[in-house]
């Protein structure tokens, strides 16, 4: 493996890691910060992808189309859905055992999967990236690199910095983190924790749907697609340290590199490498890489 190929593989690893963080960012909010074990995160991601496919023509007809217009409409719809979902299904679960959340979100997976089948059918669909992002950059003599993947990495970095800034540098972030550690205390300090949780949940769902929409042109849109990302998202949040955004970003990059180079050097063990990595990290640091924040 000569040096230029090694550099390209590093770029692949970096890009895959950033994509993983983007996909797991919604879970970092809902599971990491709020402590809700949300198995339906894969479904939110799938909803995003199907929105990117279904909304494009509708937005095209009404608002004159454009990738970013569809994105904006999708995220707004997602935040509304998140607000209603939290009120209807989650607001009474915070006092109950964690496992009640597992049961509730398992039910939601089944419901969303079937609603998708009823509304959008079972075929496989593709989503075209916007024209000005559809080109490729030359990379060495044989290969080129799709510009859209660099766009995804950009979106991911922006999101990571944004979330990190909001949660560690602003009062809102501080209140939310305090809320997740001691809900009653924050309530007694006069902060309307119910509304705050609803906002964070809606933001979590919005980010997950954004990830689905942005990744759709790369991942394509097919039934049961949420299922394949669910486990890897939990692995990322837990390795990084629950509640830590820096941790989730580092964990995503780590998995990006291990998965990419694992496929090249240890193909027969590629499937198991990510889990060996997680087991080693958690046995070395039982609370994940970073403390919260």
């Amino acid at each position, binding site marked *: 493996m000569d040096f230029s190929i090694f550099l390209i593989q590093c770029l692949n690893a970096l890009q895959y890691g950033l994509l993983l963080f983007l996909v797991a960012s919604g879970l970092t909010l809902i599971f990491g910060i709020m402590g809700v074990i949300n198995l339906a995160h894969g479904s939110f991601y799938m909803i995003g992808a199907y929105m990117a496919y279904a909304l494009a023509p509708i937005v095209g007809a009404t608002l004159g189309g454009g990738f970013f217009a569809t994105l904006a409409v999708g995220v707004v719809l997602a935040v509304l859905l998140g607000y209603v979902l939290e009120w209807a299904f989650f607001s009474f679960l915070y006092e109950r055992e964690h496992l009640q959340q597992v049961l509730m979100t398992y039910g939601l997976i089944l419901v969303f999967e079937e609603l998708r089948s009823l509304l959008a059918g079972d075929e*496989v669909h*593709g989503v075209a990236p916007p024209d000005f992002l559809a080109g490729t950059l030359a990379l060495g003599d*044989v290969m080129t690199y799709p510009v859209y993947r660099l766009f995804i990495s950009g979106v991911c970095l922006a999101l990571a910095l944004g979330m990190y800034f909001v949660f560690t540098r602003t009062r809102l972030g501080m209140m939310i983190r305090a809320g997740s550690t001691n809900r009653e205390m924050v309530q007694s300090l006069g902060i309307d924790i119910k509304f705050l949780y609803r906002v964070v949940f809606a933001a979590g769902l919005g980010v997950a749907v954004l990830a689905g929409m942005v990744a759709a042109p790369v991942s394509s849109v*097919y039934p049961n697609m949420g299922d394949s990302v669910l486990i890897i998202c939990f692995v990322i949040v837990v390795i990084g340290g629950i509640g830590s955004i820096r941790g989730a970003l580092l964990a995503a990059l780590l998995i990006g590199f291990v998965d990419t180079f694992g496929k090249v050097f240890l193909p027969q063990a590629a*499937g198991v490498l990510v889990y060996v990595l997680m087991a080693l990290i958690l046995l070395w640091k039982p609370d994940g890489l970073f403390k919260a924040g």
Partner: protein
Amino acid sequence: MTQTKSRLHLIAAAAIFCASAASAQTQPKLKVGLMLPYTGTYASLGTAIENGFKQFVTEQGGKLGGREIEFVKVDDASDPSKATDNVNKLIKRDNVDVLIGSVHSGVAMAMAKVAKDTGTLMIVPNAGAGAITGAMCAPNVFRSSFSMWQSGYAMGDVMAKKGIKKVVTITWKYAAGDESVGGFKEAFEKGGGQVVKELNLPFPNVEFQALLTEIAATKPDAVYTFFAGGGAVKFVKDYAGTGLKKSIPLYGAGFLTDGTLEAQGADADGLLTTLHYADALNTPRDNAFRLAYAKAYKLQPDVYAVQGYDAAQMLGVGLAAVKGDTTKKAEFAAALHKAKIDSPRGAFTISKFNNPVQDIYLRQVSGKENKLVSIASKALTDPGRGCKL
């Protein structure tokens, strides 16, 4: 005394005759158990197979071998661990006479075992696992689709004849992928080619960037691949995205571009694949089938619909030979082995391993269709390794 005896014989014979005659007219309905995926990633394939099957039955006026057809459906959700229970539901609760299923190889394997143990007639409308008509073959288990080996072998032959020397293969690490690449390698190396590297990644992982870079590094003359469904869509788009499409030609088994062209768009243009069916065959049989299918279901038929349609044809041929009596297994099998199935894909016969002996077509993608280029292999028979039939 002898008179009375002979009279008795006469009456007995008459009775038997009436009984069989009576049963011929008022034979009970033939219960056909459809065990297909109606949920999950292969849901659209399951529906296509059912549509194809039902279309042939309606064309025959709702009767096969003189017996009314009654359908019993079960969703196998492509989950092998629940397959045995689903099959038992059909055989023991609904006591179906014939089993049709399934798409996922693991599910089909479980079904074949139960069918083998209970002796129920079974026709596999899709799963291409070699073992079903190989190590696990049974006299009452037939297949109307293909074996992974066939499409792989045909492409190996084509690429060897094109004078391609060095090839890299890439697929998911599961039975279907291994068998397809195995068939390809067998024909390609027999034709003087060399497989320089076999890349694979865990199923259902779809992150191909690392291996695409590996392909660029090894700079082979061409690439052979097997992917299906969502994986196929993503692989073709990534392959084009990394610019390999221009420099290293991509060949594959037909499923790379079947049912996925709409999602792949321009990235799939010009791709060469081999499969036992193609669009625009424009034989009279195929055009009639496509017209009727489009009218009935408002959809363009794909290879899965053809396989469902042929499963019904095979059942019809067998039932006609045994006059609707599914207990006569040997005659049913013999009839099929002699029959020539007039399929939309082109006529094919059934090998003694109960797998179709069929032409494999070379096709090229142009304008969202897999246009026929030539016949890659004429009447290709799966070797059915390990089958003692």
